[in-house]
C-alpha cells in the first residue's frame, strides 16, 4: 500500500450530502476482477453523459480541479455499499484525502486499506475548507498526517483525530494481513478454546 505522510494539493468542493458509493463508482464498473484502472470511471454518472462526453459543470471536469488530490465533501460521504471499488477509483484518480463531517463506516475503513486518508472535522471547519476549496486551483490545502493537521490556503490550521493503529499503518504503508499473521499464535489459542466452548461453530 502507498504510504501517506504529507500532502499538498488542490481540493475539490463537493458539498452534496450523502454522496453514496453508487455515485462514486456505479455498479457497471464492479464487474472487474482487478483493483486497478477505475479512476476513469470515478463519479461516472455525474461526470459523463451517456455518450461519454464530460459534463462541464461537474467539479472534477472544471479546469481548476482536474488535478485535485483532496475532496472536501458534504456529510455522510461514502454511504451505501461495501464496494472497495469506491476507494480504488478515488485513489486511481489521484485523490488521496477526503474531508467531511462524517463517513459511512465501511467506506471509512476501506480508505485506510488503500492509502487514502479520510478526515473528520466539525461542520464549521469543514465549511471553511469548502469555501477555501471553492477558490479553485490556487487554493492548495496541506495535510500532515503525522501532526494530524489540515492547513487551508490562507494558513488556517485545523487539527483532526485519527485512530493510532490506522495512522501507523497508513504512514508506513503496512500490509495489515502480514501484521495479523504475526499474531497467529494468539489466533490459534483462541480458536482451540472457542472450538472447545462452541463446538457447533
Amino acid at each position: 500500500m502507498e504510504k501517506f505522510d504529507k500532502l499538498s494539493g488542490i481540493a475539490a468542493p463537493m458539498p452534496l450530502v450523502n454522496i453514496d458509493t453508487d455515485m462514486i463508482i456505479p455498479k457497471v464498473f464492479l464487474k472487474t476482477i482487478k483493483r486497478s484502472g477505475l479512476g476513469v470511471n470515478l463519479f461516472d454518472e455525474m461526470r459523463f453523459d451517456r455518450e461519454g462526453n464530460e459534463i462541464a459543470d461537474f467539479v472534477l471536469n472544471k479546469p481548476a480541479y482536474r488535478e485535485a488530490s483532496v475532496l472536501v465533501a458534504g456529510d455522510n460521504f461514502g454511504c451505501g455499499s461495501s464496494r472497495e471499488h469506491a476507494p480504488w477509483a478515488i485513489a486511481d484518480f489521484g485523490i488521496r484525502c477526503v474531508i467531511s463531517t462524517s463517513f459511512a463506516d465501511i467506506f471509512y475503513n476501506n480508505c485506510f486499506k488503500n492509502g487514502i486518508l479520510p478526515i473528520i472535522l466539525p461542520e464549521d471547519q469543514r465549511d471553511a475548507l469548502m469555501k477555501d476549496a471553492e477558490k479553485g486551483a490556487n487554493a492548495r490545502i496541506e495535510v500532515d498526517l503525522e501532526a494530524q493537521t489540515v492547513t487551508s490556503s490562507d494558513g488556517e490550521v485545523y487539527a483532526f483525530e485519527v485512530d493510532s493503529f490506522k495512522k501507523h499503518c497508513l504512514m508506513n504503508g503496512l500490509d495489515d494481513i502480514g501484521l495479523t499473521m504475526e499474531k497467529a499464535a494468539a489466533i490459534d489459542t483462541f480458536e482451540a478454546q472457542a472450538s472447545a466452548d462452541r463446538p457447533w461453530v
Partner: protein
Amino acid sequence: MSPKTLYDKIWDAHVADESADGTCLLYIDRHLVHEVTSPQAFEGLRMSGRSVRAPDKTIAVPDHNVPTTLDRANAETMTEDSRIQVEALDTNAKEFGIHYYPVSDVRQGIVHIVGPEQGWTLPGMTVVCGDSHTATHGAFGALAHGIGTSEVEHVLATQTLIQKKSKNFKVEITGKLNPGVTAKDITMHIIGETGTAGGTGYVIEYCGEAIRDLSMEGRMTVCNMAIEGGARAGLIAPDEKTFAYCKGRPNAPTGAEWDKAQAWWETLFSDGDAHWDLELTIKAEDIAPSVTWGTSPEDVLPITALVPAPESFKGGKVDAAARSIEYMGLTAGQKLTDIEIDTVFIGSCTNGRIEDLRAAAAILKGKKVKDGMRAMVVPGSGLVRAQAEEEGLADIFKDAGFEWRMAGCSMCLAMNPDQLAEGERCASTSNRNFEGRQGYKGRTHLVSPGMAAAAAITGHLTDVRELM
C-alpha cells in the same frame, strides 16, 4: 460482573487479541462470499502465497450478477464480464476448498438468504461478507456486518478482522403494529427518524414488543437495513422463534451439541441495567405503511403524505432534497399516492423470503396488474422459490401478470440483466433508492411487499390498507 449488552457479550466471546490502544482481532465464525467483492481477495492470496485459514467456515454463492430468467443455464444470457466474475468464484471455491452453491444448485440464492436457510448463521456468531447487507444476519443475534475486499482477504487469510468496538444503540419499538404495517415499514421508519448517518459508529439492538412479535423473516428485514441507517450492524436477541427457525437446518448442530448451543444462546440478551450510548423509542402505532420519495433511504414518509418541499429541510439537505425531487421527476406538494409506477420489483435480501411472497400474494390473489405494468417476483433463493410454488403463491403471481423468476439479487442493484431503463419508475421491495441504483436514471420508491403488490394493481403508489 458488570452488566452487558447483547453486542458486548458477542464481542467479548470473539476477541482473539487486544492491543493496548483497544484495537482487537475479532475472530470470525462465518465468512460469506459472493462473486463481486471476492476475486481481488482470492487473487491477493495467490500473489502472497497464502491459503484460506478456515475453509469450513467460508461459504460462497454467486448472486449479484446471475440472470434470473428461466433460461439462465445458458451462459450467453450473462455479459462477458459477469460470466468471468461467476467463473472466477467457481474456480476460487474449488481451488481453496470452500463450501459452494453454484448457479445450478437449487439452494443457490442471495447470500444473505442462503446463509440462514442453510443453518450457517446461528445466534452468537460473528458473520461477515463483502456486502453491506450482511447486517441481515443480526436477526439471529449474530454480530454481522459488511466488509471491503481488503478485509475479505484478511478474513480469508487469518479468520479475524482488525476492529475497534462500536458504541451501543438501543432502538425499542413498543406496542403492536397496525394492520398493513410490516417489518419493512419499521426499518424504513427508523431510518426516517435517525437519518442515514444516525447509526454511524454504533451497533443497533432492536427490541420491544413489535420486534419480538416479528417472525424471523421480518426480523431479517429489519436488520437488513441497519446499514442504511449507518450502523455497523443490527441485532435482535435470540428467542424461541430463533431456535425454532434454526433447529433442523442442514448446518445447525444436533443432539447434545444443539442442547449445549441453545443453553449458551439463552444467555444472549442485554442485561437490564446495561449501558446504552444512545436510545430511541418508537411507538409501533405511529408507524404507517411507508414509502421513499427521494434518493436516500432517509427520504421516507407515510404513504398518506405529500412530496416535501426542499425548503422544509435544513443545511446541506435542502440542496440534496431539491436534487432528489428533480431526479425523481416529482413536484413538491404532490400526493405520494398520485405517483404513477411502471415497474414493480418484489425480491432482494430485504424482502425476498417466503413471508414476503405470501404478503404480496395475499394482496394480488384474484387480481391483475395494471395494463402495461412490468412486474416481477424474484425469490431470494431456489428453496424459497420451490416453497412458494408448493404453496400456490407462484400461480397467484403468474395469474396476476407477474414474471416468476429464478433466484438472485436481480433488480435490487442492476448488475445483471434486470434493470430499469432511463426514466422508468419502480415500486421496489429492495433497500436502496440511490440515483441509478436500479439502472441509469431509473427511479426507485422503496416499499414493503404488500405495498409493491398494491402499486402493481393500481399503477400508482397505493396505501395497501385500501386493498386489504
